[in-house]
């Protein structure tokens, strides 16, 4: 039997591929046979990611997604090398602060990266010159989009917004033959988690770990779920939210 998760022949764009879930996605998709286009702001880390991929033909397209006006031209330049079969939007910021400590500028910056860029990327991706038929978009949301935690107001807002965007686009993109889904990870061990942990006490870190019945996740746990949603065996899956959180939201 052919590997049902095979991504051979597929070309996938991954944003936020410099680190964490995005980088893991690029690595796993390349192992599954996909050709990947990786994006992020840090050119050195993108180069490192590129060097870690399996197979040949992968390319990096550095870009700051807050440059909304340039996204159409940016995607046009990517598809000079071939149209896309999938888009994984992993780029995102975490902001753990009480609302009183979040400035309007902080809030807008977070929304720009976490949700506005997703909206504009999706709008640009649906153009006929960009995607192949039976394409798939996966947004990386979060369990923070469906649960309440202090100091997550802006972050949760942005991640919940992705859920609404995804469902609406799932309905709208049927005729474009594009499926749209979200993954909702819990806390995974990553650079983003390490950065957040620097500001927490050991009790707070322990509390986070204990709130996940199956322990903290790994970036690969989420990357495999994304690979499934991009693959042909998920042909009947659209408008769904796939929770990957070690049981965090269930208890």
């Amino acid at each position: 039997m052919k590997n049902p998760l095979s991504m051979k022949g597929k070309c996938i764009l991954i944003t936020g591929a410099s680190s964490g879930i995005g980088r893991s996605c690029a690595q796993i998709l390349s192992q599954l046979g996909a050709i990947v286009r990786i994006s992020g702001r840090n050119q050195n880390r993108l180069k490192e990611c590129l060097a870690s991929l399996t197979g040949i033909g992968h390319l990096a397209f550095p870009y700051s997604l807050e440059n909304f006006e340039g996204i159409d031209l940016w995607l046009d330049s990517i598809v000079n090398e071939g149209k896309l079969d999938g888009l994984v939007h992993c780029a995102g910021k975490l902001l753990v602060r009480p609302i009183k400590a979040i400035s309007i500028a902080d809030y807008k910056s977070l929304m720009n990266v976490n949700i506005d860029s997703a909206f504009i990327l999706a709008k640009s991706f649906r153009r006929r010159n960009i995607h192949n038929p039976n394409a798939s978009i996966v947004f990386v949301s979060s369990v923070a989009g469906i649960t309440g935690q202090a100091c997550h107001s802006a972050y949760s807002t942005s991640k919940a917004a992705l859920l609404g965007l995804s469902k609406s686009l799932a309905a709208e993109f049927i005729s474009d033959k594009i499926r749209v889904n979200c993954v909702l990870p819990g806390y995974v061990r990553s650079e983003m988690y390490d950065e957040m942990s620097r500001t927490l006490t050991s009790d707070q870190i322990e509390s986070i770990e204990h709130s996940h019945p199956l322990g903290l996740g790994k970036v690969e746990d989420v990357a495999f779920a994304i690979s499934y949603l991009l693959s042909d065996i998920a042909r009947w899956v659209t408008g769904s939210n796939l929770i990957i959180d070690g049981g965090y939201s269930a208890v």
Partner: protein
Amino acid sequence: MTKLEFYKGIAKILEVEIEQVSDDVALSDFEEWNSLSVIAFIAYVDEQLKFVVSPKELAESKTVHDLYLLVKSEIER
């Protein structure tokens, strides 16, 4: 950043007037000194001084002056 500017930042986090923020005042005297303000304080120091306060040392701080001591070397640079 001067010590006064640092204390103005603390006053904002604690939602009090600057006059209420002086060296010998106990943090427990402020209604708003809670776990959320602790996170806000860590973020404030990180943003303004590019320095991450040790959560353990912060938990041991009892007065406004103790908060100043956590960042003294960064302010006086």
